[in-house]
C-alpha cells in the first residue's frame, strides 16, 4: 500500500499514516493506539480517533498472522482491514495461504504433474471469529454498500474488529480489468466468498446469493485456473466445489 500511496516526497493520505514493515501493521497500530490511550489518560488528547490497519493477504494470513492474532487478543481498539487478492502481488504473483486450490501462481505453478496450488485456502475470517473479538466481517467491492456499512459498523464498535475484503486482481487472476466487479460479484454468488458478519459471536449473512453460480462458472473467467479445464485436472474443480459447499453449509447452520 505504501508503494502506491506514499512515494516520497508525495503522499496520498490526508489522514495521519504510518508504514513500518510488511508483516507488522497490527503490531505497529497497537503501539499508536497505546500512545493515544496514554495521552488520553494524561489529558493531552481529547478527540476520539479511529485506528485502521491495512494488510494484504500475504501480510495478514501469512507473515503477519502472529502480529495480527496478538493485536486482536490484546483487545486494542482498532479496525484491521485485509485486502485479500489471494496472492502476493508486490513480489509478482506468489501463492499465499489465501490462494484458492488449483490456482496457478509463480510458487504454485501449474505443471505437468502438479495442477497449481494443492491446498485449500485458509479461512482467516473464521480464525478471527475464534478470537472472540466483537466484530468480524467479510466483504467484497461488488457489494460496496454492504462493504461501507461494515466499515462504519466496525468503527462504531469499541475493541478490535476485523474485515476481510476480497480484492480481485486482474494481473494475478488473469482477467481483463473491466471484469473486476463481475468477478467479485460471482465470487459472492458462487458462495466462494460469502458476505457475512459476526457480531459478538453471532454469525449473520448480509447477502443471500440468488443465482446458482458454480465454482466452475467463476473459475473459467480467470486465467489462473485455465489448466484445470483440461483432462484429469477437472477433478480439482470438483474438489473446490465440494469444499465451497461444505463451508457454505456450515456457515448456513451457524447463521440460523
Amino acid at each position, binding site marked *: 500500500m*505504501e508503494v502506491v500511496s506514499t512515494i516520497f*516526497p508525495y503522499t496520498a493520505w490526508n489522514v495521519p499514516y504510518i508504514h513500518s514493515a510488511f508483516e507488522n501493521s497490527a503490531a505497529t497500530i497497537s503501539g499508536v493506539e497505546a500512545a493515544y490511550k*496514554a*495521552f488520553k489518560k494524561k489529558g493531552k488528547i481529547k478527540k476520539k480517533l479511529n485506528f485502521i490497519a491495512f494488510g494484504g493477504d500475504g501480510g495478514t494470513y501469512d507473515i503477519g498472522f502472529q502480529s495480527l492474532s*496478538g493485536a486482536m487478543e490484546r483487545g486494542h481498539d482498532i479496525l484491521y482491514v485485509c485486502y485479500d487478492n489471494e496472492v502476493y502481488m508486490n513480489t509478482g504473483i506468489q501463492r499465499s495461504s489465501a490462494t484458492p486450490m488449483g490456482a496457478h501462481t509463480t510458487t504454485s505453478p501449474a505443471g505437468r504433474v502438479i495442477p497449481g496450488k494443492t491446498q485449500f485456502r485458509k479461512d482467516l475470517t473464521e480464525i478471527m471469529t475464534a478470537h472472540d473479538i466483537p466484530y468480524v466481517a467479510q466483504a467484497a467491492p461488488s457489494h460496496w454498500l454492504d462493504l461501507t456499512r461494515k466499515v462504519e459498523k466496525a468503527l462504531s464498535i469499541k475493541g478490535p474488529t476485523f474485515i476481510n475484503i476480497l480484492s480481485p486482481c486482474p494481473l494475478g487472476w488473469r482477467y481483463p480489468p473491466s471484469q473486476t466487479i463481475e468477478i467479485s460479484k460471482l465470487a459472492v454468488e458462487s458462495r466462494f466468498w460469502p458476505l457475512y458478519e459476526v457480531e459478538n459471536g453471532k454469525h449473520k449473512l448480509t447477502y443471500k446469493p440468488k443465482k446458482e453460480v458454480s465454482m466452475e462458472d467463476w473459475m473459467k473467467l480467470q486465467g489462473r485456473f485455465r489448466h484445470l479445464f483440461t483432462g484429469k485436472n477437472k477433478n480439482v474443480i470438483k474438489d473446490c466445489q465440494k469444499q465451497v459447499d461444505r463451508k457454505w453449509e456450515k456457515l448456513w447452520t451457524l447463521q440460523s
Partner: protein
Amino acid sequence: MPIKALTGNEAMAEAMRQINPDVVAAYPITPATEVVQLFAQFVADGKVDTEFVAVESEHSALSACIGAAAAGGRVMTSTASQGLALMHEMLYIASGLRLPMVICEVNRSMSAPINIHCDHSDTMGSRESGWIQIFSEDSQEAYDSVIQAIRISEQAFLPCMVSLDGFIISHCMQGINELTDTEVQEFIGEHKTPYSLLMDGHPFTIGALDLQDYFFEHKRAQIEAMENVLPIIKSVGKEFSKRTKRGYGFFEEYMLGDADICLIALGSCAGTAKVAIQELRDKGIKAGLLKLRVMRPFPYKEIVSALFNIKAIAVLDRSTSMSTMGGPVFIELRSALYDNPVHPLMVNYIYGLGGRDIFPRDIVEVGQKLENIKRTGKIEKMIDYIGVRE
C-alpha cells in the same frame, strides 16, 4: 540520595519506573525477563502511567514501540539475545524513521549452540542498525545510562540501547545511588517532537517509499545525526554528573595517564580488569585500562588521542566477528589508529563467550604478555582466546 541494593535488572526497571514512559511494549527473555516483569508490576500497582503492551514477540514489541514513538510517545522496551535478533528488521526501521526510544538490553550470547549466558554477540550483531549503543560496567552505570539515554535519544532523534552483562550484572546485587523520582523527571524533562501521527490538524505521513532520488540523502542525514551524537552524550553526561557527581563520557580512563601499555574492555570485564591493572602495577608494569562505554557511534578520535602514548594495546572482546580478523572492538580500533603517526602494537583477546568466566589472573597474564610484546616488538599471535580448550 537514597541508596538501594538492586540487581542490574532491578536497577534498569527502577530507572524505567522513574522515567514513567508513555508506552512500554515488551516480551520476556532470559536474562532480561525480570525487567519486563517488574515493570508490569509497576503498571499493575499504579506506580506508572504507562500503557504496557504485553506483545506476542520481540518483533511486535519493537513494531509497537515504533508506532508509539511515531505517535509522539516516550517509549521503552527491554530484551536480550534472540529477542534483539528478532527485532533486527525493526531496529533499522526505528533508526531510519528517526524515532527516539530506549531498549534496556541484557547481553546474552546468540544461539546456536543455545546458551543463556553473557557475551556481547547480540548487541554487536546489531551495531550497524543505526542505534546508539552504550555498555555498562555495573548496575549503577546501567541505571545512570538508562536515564541519560532518554535525553540522548530524544535530542538526537535516534534510538538508543543501554546494555549490561547478562547474569554477571543483571542478577547480581549492588548498592545503587538512586535519584529521586522528581530529580529524574526534572532531568529528562518533557518529551517533545516536532511532528507526530497524533498531532492535531496536521495529517502526517511517516514511512514513505523512498526511492533512488531521495533515499541516499535521508541516509546521509541519518549518518550526520549519528555524527552529532557524541557532543550530545558529552553534554548530557556533564549535566548528569553535576547532579550526581558521577561523570560519564565516551569511555573511562583507568590509570592511563602514565601507562605505556593499555587494555581495552567493555562491560563487566572492565571491573575485573581494574583489579588486574593494580596487580600489574604492583609488578612494576605500567598498564592502564580504557573502558569503552559508547560503542555506537564509535568515538574513534577521542580514543586515539587518549592512547597517544601507548606502545602496546590488548583489546578484550566478548564477541567475535566471523571475519576472522578479530572481535568488533579490535577491528574498529585498529582501523581508527591507521592515520596515527605512530602505530602501537595490537593484539586481540576473545574471552567469555557463552558466559565463560574471566578472572583477574587471566587479565594479569594478558598484561604480562603485552608488556613482553612492548619490550620485544614482536607479536606471536594477533588473535588469541582466553580460557578456551583448543
